[in-house]
């Protein structure tokens, strides 16, 4: 097991609402590179209200690994995306987390249980890491956003201009050497 150098620049944010990535690291285990991250979710009342009115919220988690090039734009080596949907079921009065990639659905009795579950991202497998070279410095970047484009159409225009719907925060970036 090779522990990869990881870095975190988690600074306690002064903002009340938003999705904050507190900590992230890449580690290599048995030829597999996995991502572990801690994310702090503080949904705005508007978003929770919409969720409770049956509007699913879609979260996009994106990891990019880039190689710095001296005189040109950085080259993107790896891009990994994961889509998670949060839903509400009024009949069962339960919340659900649906992993749109794997199709796995989990139910929760309260919204706080949902955020507690999502806080710890563990062992997210990163594919195509074979193209990464040893002793080379890369820039890793992790970003989690609320996907406005997945909202119902009437809400989109409003969501683009309403700060209540802007939950993304500056992505977490760190330097990475294999």
């Amino acid at each position, binding site marked *: 097991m090779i522990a990869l150098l990881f870095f975190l620049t988690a600074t306690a944010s002064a903002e009340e609402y938003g999705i904050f990535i507190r900590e992230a690291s890449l580690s290599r285990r048995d030829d597999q590179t996995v991502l572990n991250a801690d994310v702090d979710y503080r949904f705005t009342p508007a978003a929770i209200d919409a969720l409770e009115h*049956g509007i699913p919220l879609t979260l996009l988690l994106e990891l990019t690994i880039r190689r710095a090039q001296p005189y040109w734009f950085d080259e993107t080596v790896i891009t990994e995306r994961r889509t998670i949907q949060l839903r509400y*079921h009024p009949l069962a009065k*339960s919340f659900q987390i649906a992993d749109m990639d794997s199709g796995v659905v*989990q139910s*929760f*009795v309260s919204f706080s249980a949902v955020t507690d579950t999502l806080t710890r991202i563990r062992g997210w497998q990163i594919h195509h890491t074979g193209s990464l070279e040893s002793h080379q410095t890369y820039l890793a970047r992790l970003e989690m956003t609320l996907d406005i484009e997945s909202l119902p*159409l*009437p809400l989109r225009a*409003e969501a683009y201009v309403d700060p209540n719907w802007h939950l993304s925060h500056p992505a977490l970036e760190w330097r990475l050497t294999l």
Partner: protein
Amino acid sequence: MAFNTLKPPLTVSIVALFLAIVGSLHLMSSATQDASRLGEMYSGLVLINALASLLLMGLVGINIYWLVRQLRKNAAGSNLTARMIFLFSLLTLAPASIVFYYSMQFLDRSIDSWFDVKIDQAMEDALQLGQTALDERMRNLLKQTEHTAEQLGTSPVSLLTVRLGELNEAEDAEMTLFTRQGQIIAFNGTSTESIAPDLPEIGIMVQVRQGKPYVGLETTEHGSMQVRAVVSIISDDAIFLQAIYPIPQRLAALADTVESAYLHYKELTFLRKSLKTTFILTLSLVLLLSLLAAIWAAFLSIRRIIEPVRLLAIGTRAIAEGDYEKRLPVKDRGELAFLVQSFNTMTGKIAQARDEAHRSKLEVERQHAYLETVLTNLSSAVLSLDPGLNVLTANEAADKILHANFQQYVGWPLAVLTGAYPHLAELMDKLESHMMGPAKHWQEEVTFQGLAGRQELFCRGTPLFGTGDERIGAVLVIDDVTTLIQAQRSTAWSEVARRLAHEIKNPLTPIQLSAERLRHKLAKTLQGQELEVLEKSTRTIVQQVEAMKSMVNAFGEYAKPTITQTRPVALNTLIEEVVALYPPPSGMEFDLSLSPQLPRAQADPVKLRQVVHNLIKNAQEAMPSGQSGRMSISTRLHDATDPSSIELRLSDNGPGIPADQADRIFEPYVTSKTKGTGLGLAIVRRIIEELGGSIKLDPGYRDGASFILQLPLAPDTFTSER
């Protein structure tokens, strides 16, 4: 959008842009209306349309800026353009705004009408019903699970798996026994899919650990429903039992229908405001875009329509500034283009007319200059006067003849002129009386006492009439006929002399011979006193005949046509030779002032010698007896800047010539002397005139008589004599 058909055809690119805008708007409106595939493109479409609006806004803004600048500059056609644009915009905006307002109203009402309190309540009730039905079932299942837990609680740990299997046979459920740490002790499941048991989430565990059993409804990833019940086994708090019961398909389907309908309605209610906003946004974008496109198109087409008017305005301005070469480009056909074409034709005609006017003006000027030249070179004085007797024009000859500078008094009345030149007063009075009289042609010979002596003037006057027969002035032509009259007189004298010589001289010889014969015959027969009378009478006859003969000879000399042979003569030498013949005992003294650089004169030296002799003799004879005369003789070039003749001046200190004889002194038998034939000066003048020169009496000389002779220069040489 329909405006396009109302306007003249625009360029293809504009039409394409317009179609693109319409297409984009249509897509956006479709996307708003149903959540089809277009829904994904909605944001992009809104963005594109917003950008298109901005672009059009920019274009319209630029056009408005351009128009305002044109208006400020007061450019041609800008006012008309502004008015047409304003009208067009008003016509576009007014109906569009009305439609927009009522669409908004309609939209608002129709969206509100979707929602009803009754339906709202029915939805809530349906959900409530479903929940009640499921709650009942869940309570039963919880009891059942608790019962199972009680039974298991009595069993020892090692037998739990077996026991669980036995208990579950009756139930169609998935049962799991696990510890507080999540370690699975026993598992019994009917469904083949679940290899690993699905453990409850943290929230449930927290509740159960507190001793409260959990039961809850769940939706699986396959869409089916299940009931999850978690209880702690009473015997030991560290072990929990979870049972998952599937809900029957029929019930699950019903519950799902109710739930999805409820959710849909709930979502609609929630999105009610946003939906309105979205529709308003779409509608506003459609309106804005079409209005802007229409206004822009209006700008383009109006500019095209106005173009010929603008060109015409520019053209007329150019014409007003005198640029007749301006030609306007004719772009297409139509009434306005026809105007432009006519304008071009007009400017062409104007330019042609201007050129012709210019040409005729030049012609008039040329003729005027020609006339001026003719008048200037005319020997007659020509004066033109207006009805108020102001001098309008006068030629150079007028100045010369009348000894006045007429050019200075052009535009002034005659009275002012006579004020400046008093010697003209008498003449001008005479002329004025003619001109103020009846309007007809007149002529008169006038004797004019000018500055250079007496002059005979021949004056003619012609009144001038305008086109309407009104009097616009008069023209005076004045000729100096002094020399002409003198010439006529001397010709007459020559004729008389020639005849006299012929008619009188012939009988003189027989008279003389007869008288001598009488004396010769009678002298023998007569005696004493009678003889004395005869002698005295015949002698008197012979003497008088001799005198008459010599007189007739002198007269004949004057009348005789002579042959002159001119050649270059050194005048100074000739004068010195002549003067040498008059030594001091002759009673004459001479003062010579001869110009040393004098060119030679063209003359007959013999005749010229006679002229000088005559003039000296004339002075000698004019002297009172016993008094010696003094004569000064000078020669010089007549005009230093324009050497055309030689001036010879002879002045004496005698009694001079009386004023009444001054102008006739050169005529035969006009003399103030007691001696002489009275022909000396007449001969002198004839000779001088034959030589091409002139002689005159200097009227300004007061000490005696002074004659001024002018002789022509020898043509071959202008060099001075050596």
